[in-house]
């Protein structure tokens, strides 16, 4: 049901510092507006009715998407999903992030929605979050007490939540360069292309001397947060990525998942699909990883 938004005060700070001051002053009663895809939709359903909305949209420079001298990708709070999808450096350097965004269907959602906004929504089904898990992304949070930098895994907490305080803003996502001989893959299963994932999986495999020197597997929509399938990763670590071993790792990943029944899928089906998607993702990552990067 669509409704007129409940009244609120719209604040448009000119700098990040000013927005932090506003959040501190209105602690607990304010929400941050970036793209609005999640926030405004929830406000229209009256799921949220904040007293204040602090818009970041008029702050210059927040749409920066850059690769620094050390080869790390840095994304500011207003970097849209569309900007990530169209970035040649992301496609070249972090293809799994590109793929995770590319399969989001709606151009409008990608144009308005931001990477950081997507993470702040903290849904365990986030395609972008799953990709950023295997890339070991770091999030920079700024608040009244200063800055803290967290690995993405420490940002999310059960259930479908994050450690972000009401007076903090995620100001940057940073992703280091992929190591040589590293391949990645993203797999998603959903009702239609436009739907939220029943299961999504990202994998990263680094191969050295014929064996997997590093494996990361992330599972989305099968737990109260995105899950790193560490036991499955351990099955492959130091081993050649042969199909039998990948299948075994996929089985272990399925047992590590903690799916639930909901309107999109059943727990049993999700667990079986974790095995299928992990098998596909790791196989693809191991294959692409063999190419020189």
């Amino acid at each position, binding site marked *: *049901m*669509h409704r*007129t*938004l*409940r*009244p*609120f*005060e*719209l604040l*448009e700070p000119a700098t990040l510092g000013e927005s932090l001051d506003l959040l501190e002053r209105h602690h607990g009663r304010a929400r941050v*507006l970036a793209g*609005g*895809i999640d926030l*405004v*939709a929830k*406000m*229209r*359903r009256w799921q949220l009715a904040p007293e204040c*909305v602090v*818009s970041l*949209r*008029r702050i210059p420079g927040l749409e920066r998407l850059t690769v620094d001298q050390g080869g790390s990708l840095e994304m500011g709070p207003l970097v849209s999903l569309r900007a990530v999808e169209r970035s040649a450096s992301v496609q070249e350097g972090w293809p799994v992030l590109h793929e995770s965004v590319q399969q989001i*269907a*709606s*151009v*409008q*959602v990608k*144009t*308005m929605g931001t990477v950081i906004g997507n993470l702040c929504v903290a849904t365990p089904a986030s395609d972008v979050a799953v990709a950023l898990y295997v890339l070991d992304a770091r999030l920079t949070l700024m608040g009244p007490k200063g800055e803290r930098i967290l690995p993405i895994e420490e940002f999310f907490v059960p259930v479908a939540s994050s450690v972000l305080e009401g007076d903090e803003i995620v100001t940057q996502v940073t992703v280091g360069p992929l190591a040589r001989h590293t391949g990645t893959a993203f797999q998603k299963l959903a009702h239609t*292309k*436009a739907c939220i994932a029943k299961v999504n999986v990202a994998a990263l495999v680094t191969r050295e001397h014929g064996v997997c020197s590093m494996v990361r597997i992330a599972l989305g929509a099968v737990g109260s947060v995105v899950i790193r399938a560490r036991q499955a990763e351990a099955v492959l670590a130091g081993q050649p990525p042969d199909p039998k071993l990948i299948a075994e790792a996929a089985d272990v990943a399925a047992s590590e998942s903690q799916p639930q029944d909901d309107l999109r899928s059943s727990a049993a089906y999700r667990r079986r699909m974790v095995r299928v998607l992990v098998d596909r993702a790791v196989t693809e990552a191991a294959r692409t990883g063999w190419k020189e990067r």
Partner: protein
Amino acid sequence: MRKESAIFHVNGHTYEVLVEANLTLLELLRDRLGMTGTKQGCAASGNCGACTVLLDGRPTLSCLTLAWTARETPILTIEGLATAEGLHPLQQAFLDCGAVQCGFCTPGMILSAKALLDENPDPNEEEVRAALAGNLCRCTGYVKIVDAVLAAARTLRIGGER
């Protein structure tokens, strides 16, 4: 609730409107400016694309945009496409190809298509489908819509105005 005066640039015209913070761009266009070409389709969930307008050239869901944040920014709605000389090639192609059924999704479809053709004058069918993926047609007449966008692209390349 405080009302503030803001300047909106819609279809090349400038409007000064008293707006409240909780007014969406869709409500501004339809209820304050009387431009009802932009539609409310889904339950403001960003799923249907019927409310799509071009904000600074970018396809934007007006139902999820706070009007105030769109002030002083070029806004293009379906009402702004035709000129004194006639329909925009996209509009003409939609008519010629039979791409309009009930018509409810058409304004959003055409604006998404315009955003595509503005940056890619020669898209293939797959690119057209990707560009329109955020616009639902409940009549499910997608084939002719895609045909129309490809036809309009040809017309525009031959030398029609955009």
